[in-house]
């Protein structure tokens, strides 16, 4: 079977070229997407901006920045990601992150850190608000009707009227509906308590072997499950590590491919960087029929996700 391939980018460089170069390589290799790591307090550039920077310089690759739900404004998150979808012409995604770290709470200074249940309950609310705001403009809301002087049909804009335990948001969005309707939402799901709590399309999981990967896939029916793999490096705390020659790496990937996972998110290691992945490993996987570049430009279509139906359009029709 053919797999989806993504690369996880992480780095402390603030030089534009250190980001545009690897993302262009991923784009030319026709990988499905790249993720951009982020956190508060770390030495890293803002991931949404890095994704926006590379958008005009690439054409195919999906751009999935990490953005944190804790302490931040759901309205800004939604509009920033919708804008990323506009500037990339439908290639935006979002890797949801929560912040349990008291040091991050001190940076924002808005409130004390949250416990596990609150963190994920709030993240679920943020995802809900972000998604509602993306739908708050119907696709054909802009009418430019000179006869009546109206630029929009206001009946096709919707207040989201979200009121939850942590915040409330009125809406509608300031940004017209993004090209994908709903950009792809992903989450790193080490902990299975997270799985059922978040309304996401893509799960990044960290199985130790192919059997464990298969077990996770069976428990997440209908979801796109990506296994995180470190290639050519030392073992970090969480993900499996593949080392060896390109052929050996391709063998390992082939051995996992029957587990039912949608694909791999490769974390470049010390000995096997983005250039090696895109110029050596990807051609090898293509030769073996394990990876076939998608002809689609929009990330949802690339990943085989269904077309996003606008929840408010449905209500209006009903």
């Amino acid at each position, binding site marked *: 079977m053919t797999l989806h391939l993504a690369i996880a980018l992480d780095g402390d460089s*603030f*030089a*534009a070229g250190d*980001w*545009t170069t690897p993302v262009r390589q991923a784009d030319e290799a026709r990988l499905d997407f790249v993720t951009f790591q982020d956190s*508060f*307090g*770390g*030495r*890293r*550039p*803002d991931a949404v*901006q*890095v994704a*926006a*920077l*590379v*958008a*005009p310089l690439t054409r195919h690759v999906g751009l999935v920045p990490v953005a944190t739900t804790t*302490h*931040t*404004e*759901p*309205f*800004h998150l939604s*509009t*920033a990601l919708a*804008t*990323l979808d*506009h*500037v990339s*012409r439908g290639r935006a995604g979002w890797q949801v992150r929560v912040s349990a770290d008291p*040091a*991050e709470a*001190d*940076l*924002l*200074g*808005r409130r004390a850190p949250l416990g596990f249940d609150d963190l994920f309950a709030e993240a679920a609310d943020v995802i809900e608000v972000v998604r509602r705001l993306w739908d708050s403009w119907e696709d054909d809301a*802009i009418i*430019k009707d*000179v006869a*009546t*002087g*109206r*630029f*929009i*049909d*206001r009946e096709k*804009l919707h207040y989201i009227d979200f009121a939850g335990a*942590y*915040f*409330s*948001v*009125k*809406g*509608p969005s*300031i*940004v*017209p509906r993004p090209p994908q309707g709903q950009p792809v939402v992903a989450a790193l799901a080490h902990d299975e308590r997270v799985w059922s709590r978040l309304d996401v399309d893509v799960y990044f999981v960290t199985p130790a072997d192919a059997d464990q990967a298969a077990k996770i896939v069976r428990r997440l029916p209908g979801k796109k499950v990506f296994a995180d793999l470190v290639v050519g490096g030392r073992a970090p705390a969480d993900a499996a590590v593949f080392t060896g020659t390109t052929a050996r790496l391709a063998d390992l990937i082939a051995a996992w491919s029957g587990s039912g996972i949608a694909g791999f998110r490769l974390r470049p290691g010390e000995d096997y960087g983005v250039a090696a992945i895109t110029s050596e490993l990807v051609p090898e996987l293509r030769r073996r029929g394990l990876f076939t570049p998608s002809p689609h430009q929009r990330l949802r279509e690339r990943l085989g996700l269904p077309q996003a139906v606008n929840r408010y359009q449905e209500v209006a029709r009903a």
Partner: protein
Amino acid sequence: MPKQIILAAHFPGVNNTTVWSDPRAGSQIDFDSFEYLARTAERGKFDFFFLAEGLRLREQRGLIHDLDVVGRPDTITVLAALAAVTTHLGLAGTLNATYHEPYELARQLATLDHLSGGRAAWNVVTSPGAFFGENFRRGGFLDHADRYVRAGEFIETARRLWDSDGGEFTVRNSQFDIRGRFGVPRSPQGHPVVLQAGDSDGGRELAARHADAIFSRHHQIDDARQFYRDVKDRLGRYGRSEDSLKIIPGVSYVLGDSDADAQERAHHIRRQQVSPQTAILLLEQLWNTDLSGYDPEGPLPETDPVLDESDTIIKGRAGMYPDRLRTANEWRARAEAKNLSIRDLIIEVTGRQNFIGTASRVAEQLDEYVQTGACDGFILVSHLTPAGLDDFVDQVVPLLQERGVFRTGYSATTLRGNLGLV
């Protein structure tokens, strides 16, 4: 050497200045539009590109306002994308001090400054009203009297973070209590350029103390000179030189083959900007009440405006009329004297273009403003997205260059350098 003019390109906004009914009008949201205007500005050797911020869609009579362009992108995300397709152009965005937090905003601006190689600028505004707050965690609102307190402390806090060179900081003041490691090393400009747009005494004082530039709304030459003098005279008490704060009004212009041709074009654009429906809406903004029963081609209302400022008919736009009754009486007198309909009157009294004439007349007037102490440059607001500045760049910029008052090439790599700020 004569004083050099600062020029900026304002992406057309969500008010009736922007004409969407013209067949040449492009998308307000596709990235192509932003890229086109930014490339045009850079071709014209402009100092910076300017993008406003949306926090909530405007409402009038309690309904989402549907007559003007509606919908815009997140400010900083578009600026980051523009950094990839431009090389010298400054990238300025409005970011509201009420609905952002210093750590996150300082980090975003410092990131933009790094990714763009020193071209980031921040227009600081504050919003006291509860209307925007309904989209944000803080909900509620800021007390009107506290808005400049928050803005001032916000700027001071951001500067502390930028000065930390990515290291540890502690800030405790009346608005913020934050500490930790900033994480972003010193950016090429050190501090992104700070613009300020407030016009009240508090706003002017804030600018004199904290800002690098003022996005002003004074464009009549005498009024502009007065404002310029007032603000520059405040700098001494903060130990600042006159050159350290640039005054840049937002202005519009219309070019023509002759002055008469330009006047005719200007009138045509004004009619596009003020549709019959828009005329009623704009009248309502002064009258502060529902006038939807009035005929735009008929006379002005005989009833007086509603003076209750606690519940204005338009939400999401700064107040424009300090004395409603006086302005209404002036408008009625003018309409009666010249026999003007509501629409004709609105066309005359709102938003007339500031500079109208041949390219050489406009160049001459712009130069006069700058050489005679009315301003240091201009933020050009065009009525067409995205090609509205093409004629200015093609026709007026070369004349300014001939006069020796505008650059023929970028001399610095950072915005701060190009603006002549230290």
